[in-house]
């Protein structure tokens, strides 16, 4: 049964300066004319009774779950998704599970249910008139969110409901074994993002990116962009002081409305995105301190296949200015607790190039793709109008990637280019941009290719065993990243990483596959967690799990089993 404290390491960092407001990501807005974000009010004085209790948002699961799963893992998967959002340090938002329900509606009734509709795609509300029925045919899942649009509570979310479509779709908690079904945890993670106030993200590797395919579970963890959005809406006590903000104006002949602006960290990974408002202002918040590179580009044209376009966003983002050229990178130093102002100027005129599809050869889609550390000779590519049919028109940002060949063709009527890529065993993990260039232009699939750990293989194996206590965990800060390594005597299939102060460790999200006998996780610094405050010590805990998701945090010094999210190793 257990063991796991793979080890405990301690990191203490000092600093702190006051910081301005946080703005980044793309929050849902109050209305088409009011760009104010919407959030839950977590303070007891004004929170909506019934859903927000003791500063936590109470969700309730319909006890029937999905008809496709009868062992309770469907409800566990939904709860795991809430836990993942809970596990973000630097965020004040916490969800808690209330008593299960035996019936659910999408009414504003003081309950936040998560449920499957089975038997009919028509959601009925049990009221006298059918006026409030809604037919969700074709929808995978829907988040119904109520918010206040005026008055002192302006912008507050007051009720939410999430409905999964069990009629037209099949669901699973094991998309690896059931690849034609939809992964409950991934979809729940996405819909919860909406229920907490986030709109879609143009970062293809983000959980809030608008598309997911059957059989995929890559979205069970949150990207740095998702985290930046969450922290923007619900900043934790230390968040403003520990992170950097870059803001400015995006202008051409006039201010640009709706330009995509994003920052890459020094390893070429997407740190955060924002969009310029109707006055051309943009803000990227939650940036890890250190050098970042800013980029801006227009959103894709409406209609047809695209990675991200106006229709993917709420109605505030309509009539966006697409008539400008993408910028080349502008280097900026993000500083803790400080807003750095950096304006971006663009050249007017339509972009001569766009990206519509990308992926591994033969499996192009308008969604993200991935590469794994150690893979060699993988053909990946992109397609879109204006892509040259010769030369080297594609590139991936960041180190650790080697390109050894090129080919060209046509996909879905668009010119396409493919490159043969090999990934170094130590390539930095995370979302990279796939950049397309032509003689007169540049466009990026933002976060279009994610570098992942090598796939684990073989049977689940036994639950990692071992006694309570610690095994040496080396913690080392290397540039913007924090490297953790330990001796993997148990040969666990996967590890989960926890971080925080003693007594409040929180999961950093995602499983990390074993890389070898000497295990190693590279945490991309502040993009994943808050650094400790002055004089404060933070701890890392690595817990071992098998491929079936069985494991634990191990025992405390008295040999008592620790509960997830509860206490750290003493």
């Amino acid at each position, binding site marked *: 049964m257990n063991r796991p404290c793979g080890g405990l390491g301690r990191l203490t960092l000092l600093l702190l300066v006051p910081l301005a407001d946080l703005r980044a990501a793309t929050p*849902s807005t*109050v*209305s*088409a004319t009011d760009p104010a974000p919407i959030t839950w009010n977590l303070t007891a*004085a*004004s929170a*909506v*009774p*019934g859903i927000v209790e003791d500063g936590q948002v109470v969700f309730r699961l319909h006890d029937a779950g999905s008809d496709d799963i009868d062992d309770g893992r469907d409800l566990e998967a939904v709860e795991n998704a809430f836990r993942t959002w809970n596990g973000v340090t630097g965020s004040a938002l916490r969800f808690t599970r209330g008593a299960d329900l035996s019936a659910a509606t999408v*009414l*504003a*009734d*003081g309950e936040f249910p998560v449920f499957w509709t089975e038997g009919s795609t*028509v959601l*009925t*509300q049990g*009221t006298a*008139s*059918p*006026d*409030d*029925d*809604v*037919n969700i*045919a*074709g*929808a*995978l899942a*829907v*988040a*119904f969110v*109520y918010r*206040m*649009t*005026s*008055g*002192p*509570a302006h912008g507050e979310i*007051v009720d939410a409901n999430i409905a999964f479509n069990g009629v*037209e779709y099949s669901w699973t908690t094991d998309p690896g074994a059931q690849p034609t079904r939809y992964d409950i945890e991934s979809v729940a993670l*996405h819909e919860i*993002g*909406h229920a907490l106030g986030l*709109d*879609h993200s143009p970062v293809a590797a983000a959980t809030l990116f608008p*598309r*997911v395919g*059957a*059989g*995929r579970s890559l979205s069970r963890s949150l990207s740095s962009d998702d985290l930046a959005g969450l922290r923007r809406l619900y900043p934790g006590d230390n968040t403003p002081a520990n992170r950097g903000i870059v803001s400015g104006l995006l202008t051409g002949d006039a201010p640009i409305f709706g330009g995509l602006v994003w920052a890459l960290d020094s390893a070429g990974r997407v740190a955060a995105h924002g969009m310029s408002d109707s006055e051309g202002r943009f803000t990227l918040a939650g940036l890890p301190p250190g050098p970042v590179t800013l980029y801006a580009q227009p959103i894709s044209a409406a209609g047809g*296949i695209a990675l991200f376009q106006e*229709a*993917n966003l709420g*109605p*505030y983002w309509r009539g966006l200015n697409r008539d400008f050229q993408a910028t080349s990178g502008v280097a900026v130093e993000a500083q803790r607790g400080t807003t750095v102002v950096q304006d971006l100027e663009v050249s007017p005129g339509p972009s001569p190039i766009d990206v519509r599809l990308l992926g*591994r050869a033969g*499996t*192009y*889609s*308008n969604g993200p793709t991935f590469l794994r550390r150690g893979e060699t000779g993988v053909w990946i590519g992109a397609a879109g109008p204006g892509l040259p049919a010769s030369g080297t028109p594609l590139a991936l940002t960041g180190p650790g990637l080697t390109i050894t060949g090129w080919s060209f063709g046509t996909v879905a009527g668009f010119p396409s280019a493919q490159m043969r890529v090999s990934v170094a065993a130590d390539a930095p993990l995370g979302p990279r941009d796939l950049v397309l260039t032509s003689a007169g232009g540049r466009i990026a699939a933002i976060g279009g290719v994610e570098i992942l750990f090598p796939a684990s293989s073989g049977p689940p194996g036994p639950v990692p065993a071992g006694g309570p206590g610690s095994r040496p965990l080396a913690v080392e800060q290397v540039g913007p990243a924090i490297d953790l390594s330990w001796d993997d005597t148990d040969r666990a299939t996967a590890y989960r990483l926890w971080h925080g102060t003693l007594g409040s460790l929180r999961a950093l999200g995602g499983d990390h596959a074993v890389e070898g006998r000497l295990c190693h996780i590279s945490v991309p610094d502040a993009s994943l967690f808050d650094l400790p405050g002055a004089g404060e010590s933070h701890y890392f805990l690595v817990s071992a799990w098998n491929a079936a998701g069985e494991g634990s945090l191990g025992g405390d010094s008295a040999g008592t089993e620790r509960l997830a999210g509860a206490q750290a190793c003493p």
Partner: protein
Amino acid sequence: MSRSCTPQIRRYAKESPRASILALLILGLFCLPAFGTLLRPLSVETLADLSDVVARGRVDSVEVVWNDSATMPVTRVEVEVLETLEGNAGGRRLIVTVPGGERDGIALDYGGRPRFSPGEEVVLFLQRRGGRGFIPVGLAQGRLEVHREAATGRALLRRDLAGAVLMERDERGDEGPVAAGPADLEALRQRLRARSRPPRPAQP
């Protein structure tokens, strides 16, 4: 018919002076933001299979009211029927209701919520819900905008998914590429005529 606030918000108002003020505010209808919804593209044939009526019409009026239990703002749309493409509309006017909208300072939204504006011409795939009332099938996929081409007068069709997104083809090719809908009204008519209408599965 319409109420000032939901029971939940009433309870909120009791306990929060801010909400009491809020309950006094009456706002007009305006467009609201969408929230995420993942949609599988439905062909017009599938939409028609799920519908009782497919009709082209002009939106006469749009009003947001409370549902019977005052627990949900509902958008009530009155449509003048210009052409019944399939089924029996039962008259020259249709009442279409769609959960969501903004009323009395509270708004309900979700990705894929069909939106309507007075005066616009639309094709609707509708399911009958009691008496003369209908609801759209497949969220925003059940509503096509009709636009007249200036030079030719040709009736073009356009779909606004209201923040929802059609799903991609997955790594294993399980989803097809985004389905192309009929480009114009005549093509839609032909596709509806060409299909043999199967019995529609019962929906409560």
